[in-house]
């Protein structure tokens, strides 16, 4: 290779790198400024007990104080325990329940008929309601004095309920009922998965004389495992981070903190300038999510991916 040839090659490579970095620059800056740097700052903040975000850090005690606070301080530890209980119980019940219900819906709609498209759209519609509009509707329907659901309770001879403002777990149950209207979102995803299953499998099963439930268990569910796996992970992670819906329904976290989901608990601490404590809470959530994801990824070996036998 001649000298000038090598030179043009180097110039060309430099040019390629330059173009690449120009194109990637927004992402790169965003990644550093809005993700990596905040991650480090959050970690540092979490070790300064009572850090409020404005006074210099040197005025605060360094150590595990914020982390211990969630378990030892009299008031915070009760709220912390309550929010952890609410959040994890909710995730443990509502993630599987939501998946089963939406899967049943998609099985129901997975047929060849012109009317299916219309029903699919109808079932999906509530997912398009903006959060604030949801709040307006459900605070009205679940109103403690004139709400429609209290009228229904009256028909069945039940005493009126305060729903979101109940001083016990009924508040979370109301929240769960409200979220059932969003089942259509997962349904769409299941439907896409069901469509990808080759009809030849069903044809073969039918010829073998396999019944509906046998086909469901032996063919549909195994072929849907990638979708099940994906939904499980995203739903668990999403549920553990519930914040804005709970905030809108009850900005203070409900009567006696009955709607204090963990995400909301962090946010409330941010609002009252407990930056250090909020950072510690967020990091604990992060560790739990990472561990849970790792645990869930162990199920990956049961997932059937088309074409990698």
């Amino acid at each position, binding site marked *: 290779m001649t000298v000038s040839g090598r030179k043009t090659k180097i110039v060309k490579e430099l040019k390629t*790198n330059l*173009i*690449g*970095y120009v194109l*990637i620059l*927004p*992402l*790169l*800056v*965003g*990644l550093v*400024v*809005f*993700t990596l740097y*905040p*991650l480090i700052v*959050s970690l540092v903040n979490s070790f300064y007990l009572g850090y409020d*975000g404005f006074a210099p850090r040197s005025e605060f005690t360094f150590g595990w104080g914020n982390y211990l606070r969630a378990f030892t301080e009299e008031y915070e530890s009760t709220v912390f325990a309550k929010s952890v209980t609410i959040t994890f119980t909710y995730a443990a019940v509502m993630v599987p329940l939501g998946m089963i219900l939406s899967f049943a*819906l998609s099985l129901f709609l997975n*047929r060849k*008929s*012109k*009317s*299916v498209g219309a*029903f699919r*759209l*109808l079932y999906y*519609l*509530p997912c*398009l309601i903006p*959060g*604030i*509009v949801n*709040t*307006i*509707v459900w*605070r*009205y329907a679940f109103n403690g004095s*004139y709400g*429609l659901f209290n009228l229904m309770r009256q028909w069945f001879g039940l005493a009126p309920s305060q729903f979101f403002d109940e001083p016990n777990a009924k508040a979370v149950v109301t929240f769960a009922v409200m979220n059932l*209207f969003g089942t259509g*979102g997962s349904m769409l*995803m299941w*439907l*896409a998965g069901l469509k990808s299953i080759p009809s030849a499998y069903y044809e073969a099963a039918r010829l073998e004389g396999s019944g509906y439930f046998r086909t469901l268990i032996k063919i549909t569910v195994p072929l849907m495992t990638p979708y099940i796996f*994906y939904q499980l992970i995203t739903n668990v*992670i999403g549920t553990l981070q519930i*914040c804005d819906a709970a*905030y*809108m329904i009850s*900005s203070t976290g409900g009567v006696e903190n009955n709607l204090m989901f963990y995400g909301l608990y962090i946010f409330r601490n*941010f609002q009252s300038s407990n*930056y250090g404590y*909020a950072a510690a809470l*967020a990091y604990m*959530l*992060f560790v739990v999510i*990472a561990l849970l*994801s790792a645990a869930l990824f162990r199920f990956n070996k049961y*997932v059937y991916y088309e074409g990698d036998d």
Partner: protein
Amino acid sequence: MALNVAAKPPLKKKKIIIAIVTWIVAIALAAFFLFPFVIMLCRSVFTTAESLSMSAGLIPRDGFYFRSYIEALDAEFLRYLGNTVIVIGANIIGKPLTAAMAAYAFVKVKFRGRKLIFNVAMCTIMLPAILTMIPVYKIFVDLGWNNTLLPLTVPAFFGGGFINIFLIMQFIRSLPKDMDEAAIIDGANVFQLMFRITFPLILPVISLVAVQSFFLAWNDFIGPLMYLDNNELFTLSVGIYNKFFTFASAADTQPNVQMATGVLVMIPPMCVFMLFQKQLIEGVAFTGVKA
């Protein structure tokens, strides 16, 4: 479903019953999912007194009260709408554009360190947003951008979310390469290739990202809540929330106006959804499983 059941008389009785039951279940489910819409539309035209009474009725006894819509659509609402439009404008331009640029670079430009950047960005998908939220807030406060719309608009121009980048990358990978080669022979540079050849071909996925950004920005509550405390700057969700739910007393005064407000806030996303229905539903499927 039950199409043309009557056209074939020798059908078994069992099949007819199954078809009827299927229809009943389908319609009952539809009624369930439409409940929030029905209640909102019906109660928005009730008089204030009647909307405050406990009744199962869908048709107003005291006559239709359309003034609730006029009351809902006051100057404040229009100002919130204006602010929301500004935020949305930035988001539906910034996110698809910067995400497409990054996606193009990752797929087509063989620059050094692209694998490292890609992997780091990939790892950040799993991070809970709340973890980075407070330091980002602090950055904007230190910049003096607190109580402006900048924290809600400027971040849209920094990559547009890695999931979107990933989505666009998948799309670019599926494009045929011979058009690029032909253009290179004709002496086109990278930017010409990108804007003239690739971007027009990936318009479907770009518009999907834009529409999804629209929904995110339209629904965003926590962002405006954190950064704005001036009624002049509120976006719809925070403005309406403050109006109706900040003071317990205000919440229970005019449910009919609240419902009318709800209907108004819902109209734009519904229209956008109807326009881009096919892409959005396919988008759910596409982002669904690419593990």
